[in-house]
């Protein structure tokens, strides 16, 4: 398993090319092209702003103003997470031609999916930055140094789960449909459009065993809340857990690898 893991490094160029292809192909034919990567999160932000300032103005404490910005800090990375998982569940089946007809390292496909979505996440960051500046929120530059760590943890966790899902979906196609609903549930079970402090005390325990809680909390603390970043413990523990998930996911993927060419 570790030898095939080492091979992953050899596929750098391939992964890079495929990510670029994925991004190029995604907006090919649309008038605005790449700009959609900026517009999508911006439009999303407007919608949430409208709903939570005009339609439901009193759902959050004053300490969380501007609430739209708060939500945006969570929704942006969540979109990366959920799109990656949804797409990776289909990626081996969609790439069936490659797996069946070309000598092609299958693990490249889920990795490309996660990375392409990460690029979209990065493209959303300038929008986020613009709004932070617009609302004149104080951001501690030192805290920003944590951001790459958080992104890294999320990348490892997401890739690990993507390995699991892509490999298992080849055998159980219904995972695809199940996953859509599961992700909706997961979205509401994660403090994204609310803060963990707002949840009833007896729910806190549940929130704490949700790994996404700690990722989102970290983003929110670094980008939104004032005061020093004090979620390091959870974040680093999650980092270790993510590596375990990654290795386990890759192990399952590697075990099922031989069946892909026959099953997709």
């Amino acid at each position: 398993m570790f030898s095939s893991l080492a091979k992953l490094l050899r596929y750098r160029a391939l992964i890079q090319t495929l990510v670029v292809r994925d991004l190029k192909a995604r907006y090919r034919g649309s008038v605005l092209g790449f700009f959609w990567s900026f517009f999508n999160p911006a439009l999303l932000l407007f919608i949430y702003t409208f709903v939570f300032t005009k339609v439901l103005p009193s759902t959050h404490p004053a300490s969380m103003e501007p609430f739209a910005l708060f939500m945006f800090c969570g929704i942006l990375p969540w979109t990366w997470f959920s799109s990656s998982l949804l797409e990776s569940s289909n990626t081996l089946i969609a790439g069936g031609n490659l797996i069946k007809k070309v000598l092609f390292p299958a693990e490249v496909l889920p990795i490309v999916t996660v990375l392409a979505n990460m690029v979209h996440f990065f493209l959303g960051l300038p929008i986020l930055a613009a709004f932070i500046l617009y609302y004149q929120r104080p951001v501690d530059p030192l805290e920003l140094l944590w951001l790459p760590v958080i992104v890294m943890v999320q990348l490892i966790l997401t890739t690990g789960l993507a390995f699991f899902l892509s490999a298992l979906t080849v055998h159980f196609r219904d995972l695809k449909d199940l996953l859509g609903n599961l992700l909706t549930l997961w979205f509401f079970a994660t403090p994204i459009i609310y803060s963990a402090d707002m949840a009833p005390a007896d729910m806190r325990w549940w929130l704490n065993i949700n790994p996404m809680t700690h990722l989102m909390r970290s983003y929110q603390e670094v980008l939104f809340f004032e005061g020093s970043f004090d979620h390091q413990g959870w974040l680093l523990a999650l980092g270790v857990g993510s590596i375990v998930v990654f290795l386990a996911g890759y192990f399952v993927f590697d075990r099922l690898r031989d069946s892909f060419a026959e099953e997709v």
Partner: protein
Amino acid sequence: MKPAIDVVNVSKVYRRYARRRQFATLKSALLDGSLLGDLKPDETFQALRNVSFSVPKGCTYGVIGSNGSGKSTLLKCVAGITRPTEGEVKVDGRISALIELGAGFHPEISGRENIFINGIMLGLSKKEVQRRFDEIVEFAEMQDFIDAPVKTYSSGMYMRLGFAVAIHVDPEVLLVDEVLAVGDQGFTHKCLDKFSDFRRRNKSILLVTHSLDLVEKFCDEAHWLDKGMSKGEGDPKRVVAAYVINVEDSEENSLAKAEAARVAASASEVPQAPPPDVDGEKAPENPVDDAEHSRDGFKSTEGRWGTREIEITNVSISGPDGEAGHVFQSGDDVKVHMTMTAKEPITDFVFGLGLFNADGVCVYGTNTNLEEFQPSEIRGECAVTFEIDSLDLVEGTYRLDLAAHKADGYPYDYHRLLYTFRIKSRVRDVGIYRPAHRWTFGGGITFKGEA
């Protein structure tokens, strides 16, 4: 020297899941606690069975076999796309597999970008693709369209581009699966030239094909697979010959089976009353079918009719070896044997025979009346043999009409297109009839390989 490809005792078992398994879901798998149990096959299909061979460097190795013989599975095992269930495949050097051309192309982006992506997928670095780019485009004859999205390409363009990229990966070992049908004559020649070039540079090619010509002309060695098993290996001419004989045998079997079914079906047709078109003044001069009939579309399907006062009870066709068969070589001495039974002595009778090609064109028709035999009497069981000294037909499938009738066309027993045989030929000439012929050349004309 180390062989380029070494295949040792390779077996491949495909899993075929029973119907139950197809409807299984994750939920049911979890509920039954049989997640792993369900991943085990209920039924297996052995695509390859103990296949071994090795391809020395610089050798072009052909694999032949009928559909489903495991050729493509073998190629996939060598390419490393699937792993053999048992045995081992060793390949020395970079492989490029021409299995499905342009498999990695993305329809939305341009040919130019796809060349890069495809090249990198096949193991080149970006720089290497850059260096070969012009050559690839030129080889594919795509200069004018290289910046258009691939989805706008015709299937021929798509394949040419895929082929061009794959062949410019410059592998040590090239695996080719029936992909030479990608372009016009010119392009096919270019591909063959490229293969020859490969050979000169001491690289190896593993070629899977149905084109026996190609194997004979092009390969140094050939391997014949049948139902996943090795049936022969060695000199291409010998292996191809053995394969062809086997194919003829199986064709023979399927023709014999089909014929038996047809004869059985027509035997159950109600005898007696001749079809209305056949009697009266409309009865044709040559009652054993003639071109008129098929042109009218008159009874162009097989069938049997007549009063059976004389009954054709048995028909067989035999070749030069005297044995009944259905596959003959062009120019063979072929006999058509009929067994007749006349229930009562009859004095007005004609035997006839018509020969048709697959398009329904009458190749030849005759009867004993036209050839001025004067019938005297037929009684009891008797035999009629029609012998053709040299059946000079081109390759194809032919059908026979056989009949016994009165001189005025009144049918006793008419067998319409019930008997089929196939003519095989080493020469790919066209038409129907091959007149005995020879070429002579005078002056400064010479041919390669001629004494």
